[in-house]
Each structure stands twice: as structure tokens, then as C-alpha cells.
């Protein structure tokens, strides 16, 4: 079949391995451009992570010393712990809340399309700007509204122990928009008959959810969780808007640290090593999730 295809396409009897020249013209320019602006910078980053390059001036190779230093750097370790902790909490909350709302939207309610439209609004809004709106809310409004509550009467964004909470709230607020829509699409693929059959067997309510709904939408859970983890591990906009990594460096994410150290701190090489570690962690987490959440895939 492929032979006929090629023959029709080119009008000649060509080797199965090679396509018509036009197809190569459609691909090569993009491979070259993609390599120039993506692959080569990535390889350059990895290369410079083995140097002492500051972003300017002379440099020489230093072997693995940037990596060794990273593991002894409290600031770096803290930013990884914070980022991973934040990503886990935000991912769990996003998926539990979104699934609950999607289940409600899929039930017998009025004005479903209107509510679906409302829940999706945050998707089209800028994370940075949402962050600024909430920054004012948490730092100015909350202390006035809850002036009697000990923890909330002060600006929670300047509280070393609790500043992560508003960051999680803002992140989840926006991430739910996309997740709800995906879960709703998933729930709508489940045929009604299955629930009828199950209710005859006595499976209703939470039992039906656990034994029917959840297994059938597992693919959608995978999509949401993998995308969430990947995005949250690179959290930047909301942190810049809410705390800028502070107080101190309590809420400094890895990306913020790479940005600050790499561009203004003269740590081009060091932060390149940092980015390489982040890359490995994100890849590792994605693979683990795909294996764990989706055991039937090969």
C-alpha cells in the first residue's frame, strides 16, 4: 500500500526509504530552525554547566564542581524542596477540586453550559495579573476582613511559614479551569447504561464512583496530573507576583532562582547546572507518573 502511495505521489518507482523531494523541503528548514533555537541552546546550557562562565568574560572547564556545589547549597536545596512540596500540594488540590466540580457539572443541574463557561474563565487570564490581584487581596483585604483572627490579621505573604498557602490558592484557582473541562469531557464519554447496570448490582454513590467512574477516566487523570506537575515544577509568574520568592527565600521556586541567579547574579554556569537538575527531575517525575498512573500502556 505504501508502495502504491509513493508511486502515485511521484509518478516513478522509488525506493520505499525515500520520499518525494517536496516532503524534505517541508521538514528540513524546520529541523534546522528548531535546532538553532531549541536543541543547540539546550546543549549549550548543559555544556556551560561544566564551566565557570559568569554570563560574560572568560571561562574554563570545571568538571562536575557546579553540580557538587549545588548539592551543598542550602538555598538550592530549599528551592527544590519548596518547589516539589508546592507542586504536590497544588496538583492534589487541583485534581480533587476539579474532579468534584466536573462530577457536579455532569449531574442533573441547571445551566450547565453557563457554569462550565464561568469555570473556564481563569484559563484565558494571565497568571501574573491574577497573582497581582490576589497579592493585594491577601496583603491588604484579608487583614482587614479577618482583623480578629491571629494568623490572618497580618499579611500572610510576609509570613515565612504560611506564605506558600496563597501561592497554592492562586495556582489552583487558575489550573482548575483547564482540569475541570478535561474531566468533564472524560465523564461525558461514560455511557449511562453502565451506571444502570451497576445500580442493579447495588453499586451507587461513592462505590459507583470508585469502581466505575474513576477507572474509566483514569486516562484523563493522567493527562491532568502530568501536565500539572510539569507546569507547577516550573512555577514562576504567580511567585513573582505574590512574594517574589520571599520572605527571605521561603517561597523561592527553582525557575525563579535560575532566573535571578542566571541573569543578575552572574551565575550563568551554576544556574545552567541547576536547570539541568530540574530537567532531570521533571523527566523522572513524568516517567514515574506515566508508569504508575497508566500501567497498561507500553
Amino acid at each position: 500500500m505504501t508502495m502504491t502511495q509513493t508511486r502515485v505521489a511521484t509518478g516513478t518507482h522509488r525506493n520505499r526509504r525515500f520520499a518525494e523531494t517536496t516532503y524534505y523541503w517541508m521538514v528540513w528548514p524546520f529541523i534546522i530552525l528548531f535546532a538553532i533555537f531549541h536543541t543547540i541552546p539546550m546543549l549549550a546550557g548543559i555544556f556551560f554547566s561544566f564551566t565557570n562562565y559568569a554570563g560574560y568574560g572568560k571561562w574554563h572547564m570545571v568538571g562536575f564542581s557546579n553540580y557538587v556545589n549545588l548539592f551543598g547549597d542550602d538555598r538550592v536545596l530549599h528551592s527544590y524542596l519548596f518547589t516539589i512540596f508546592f507542586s504536590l500540594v497544588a496538583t492534589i488540590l487541583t485534581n480533587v477540586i476539579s474532579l468534584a466540580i466536573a462530577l457536579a457539572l455532569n449531574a442533573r443541574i441547571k445551566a450547565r453550559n453557563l457554569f462550565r463557561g464561568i469555570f473556564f474563565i481563569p484559563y484565558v487570564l494571565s497568571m501574573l495579573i491574577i497573582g497581582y490581584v490576589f497579592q493585594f487581596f491577601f496583603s491588604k483585604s484579608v487583614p482587614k476582613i479577618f482583623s480578629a483572627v491571629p494568623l490572618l490579621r497580618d499579611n500572610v505573604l510576609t509570613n515565612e511559614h504560611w506564605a506558600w498557602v496563597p501561592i497554592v490558592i492562586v495556582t489552583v484557582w487558575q489550573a482548575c479551569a483547564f482540569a475541570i473541562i478535561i474531566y468533564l469531557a472524560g465523564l461525558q464519554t461514560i455511557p449511562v447504561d453502565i451506571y444502570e447496570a451497576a445500580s442493579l448490582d447495588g453499586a451507587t454513590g461513592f462505590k459507583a464512583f470508585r469502581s466505575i467512574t474513576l477507572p474509566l477516566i483514569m486516562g484523563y487523570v493522567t493527562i491532568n496530573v502530568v501536565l500539572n506537575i510539569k507546569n507547577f515544577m516550573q512555577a514562576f509568574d504567580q511567585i513573582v507576583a505574590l512574594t517574589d520568592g520571599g520572605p527571605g527565600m521561603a517561597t523561592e521556586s527553582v525557575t525563579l532562582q535560575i532566573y535571578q541567579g542566571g541573569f543578575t547574579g552572574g551565575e550563568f554556569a551554576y544556574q545552567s547546572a541547576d536547570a539541568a537538575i530540574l530537567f532531570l527531575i521533571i523527566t523522572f517525575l513524568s516517567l514515574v507518573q506515566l508508569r504508575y498512573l497508566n500501567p497498561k500502556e507500553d
Partner: protein
Amino acid sequence: MTSSQVMNAIPAKSSGMNSHTQNGHGRHFHRVNWWLTALVAVCSLTVLVPLYFAVAVALKSPEQLAKGTGFEWPNPVHWGNFAQAWVRTNFPRALMNTAMITVCSVVLTLLTSSVLAYALARNMHRPFFKIAYYYFLAAMFIPFPIVMLPVVKETGLLGLDNQAGLIVLYTLYGFSMNIFLYTTYLHSIPMELEEAARVDGASTWRVFWQIIFPLLMPMNATVGILTCVWAWNDFIMPLVVLTDPGARTLPLAQYVFQGQYNTNYTVAFASYLMAMAPLLIVYIFSQRWVISGVVRGSVK
């Protein structure tokens, strides 16, 4: 590879949002659950109240704001904040930059990634194209921070530390996702259509632009929506790539304004609303189309 696994995890039949009548479970009862409706309405306030809050703050004078929590509706209303924000953030300039970057990125993305995906999809049985496909796809899980520091050096050296550079980057960095979406969709378009045209002597380019590209319209919508939302709202790439203040995008202008007048909240909020408004208005009028486009991109 990883991303294709994610996407394949979804059952192929998932068809989008317009099939409630046959699918939405329990529809045959025809009885509305008012308690649940009320609960959903309350939950939807978590989205609407922050938006109301942003409007209420943007319409206050600094004195009105200082007196209350921010939630009170102002009396009298201060429209002047918008005029001030217009001037101080150089709004027309930032809007023009963002609009130009977004429109060019969307157009360029549609024109390039569809051609590329077509060439890859129709030759997937050939080693070169298969390798190229996975080369682009593998980039989906490479985080931007690892590319960030060197690419900023590079755009600086090439004179692309401006709007044109961002357009190039949005187009190229979107390839992984877009090629994946297009190739999946192309597999569902029957070959017979093209073969007939080829027998009549049409060239590959002609076949693509006259037969395939129009058939790709649903995916063009999806790719267009995803690229548009990304390019309009993105903050980190304009932040690191752009050097000229005149090239600032809307999110970047908010960041700079925040740095300069960090206590001028009422004017800042007016400028937030103006920056969010264009996309929000487009969304409100094309809600169903946008949502179905995004769903098509995620569950295909």
C-alpha cells in the same frame, strides 16, 4: 515519547462536549437537582468574586480604597484610573506589541506546523520522518528554564531581542504540541482525497494548500486558540528576551508598573483589567468554540 503516551492514555472515542444528551449520566431522569445546582453556583463565585474584586478596586480613589476592604462598590465611581493607567503603562504601545506578537505567532504557527506535520504524517513509515517526528515531540517535556539562559544570549547576538524574536520562539517552541495534534488529526483524513488530486497532476504543495489545509480547520482552531492564549499571557519569555522598553508586552508592562509605583493600587488594577479585557471579551463571545477547541486538543 512521553507525551504521546499521555495522549494515548485517552480512549479514542472521546468526542468532545456536545454529546450530553446521550452521555451525561442520569439524564433520563429529567429531574433537576436544585441542591447541586446551588452548590455549583456557590463554587462558581470563587471565580466571579475575584473578578468583581478587581473591578471594584479599579473604580475607587486611593482614599476610598484605604477606608474599606476593597470589596465595597465605590460611590462615586472613579473612571479616571483607566485614563491614568492608559498613560502611565503606555497602554496603547503594550497592547500593540502584544496584539502584534500574538497575531503573528498564531498565523506563523498555523502556516508552518501544519505543513511540517503533514510531511511527517504522510511519511511516518520512512525512518527519516519518524526520527524527525520524535525529535520534535521529545522537546515537549524539556522545561523552558534549561533553554532560557543560552537562548537569551543567542537572541541578543542575532538581534532578535525584540518582538520578532518572540514570534520566532513561540512558533518554534509550539512545534512539539502542535505537530502532535496535527499528525493525530491527519491520520483520520482518508488518503483517497489526495490521491485523486495527484492523479490529476497536482503537486504536493498544491494538494496541501487546496485539499489538506481546509480539512485541517478544526485542528487549526485548536492550535490557534492554544497559541493565542499562550502568547497573549506569557510573561517569562518577554521578560528575559526583550531589551527595548518600547517592545514591552502587556504582562511585562504590569510587572514594570508594579516595580515603579508599587502602592498605586487603584491605577494598577485599572491597568490589569485593560490588559485582561481583550482576551476575556473574545472568550465571552466565543465561549463554546474556545472550550471545544481546547478539549479537542487535549483528548484527541
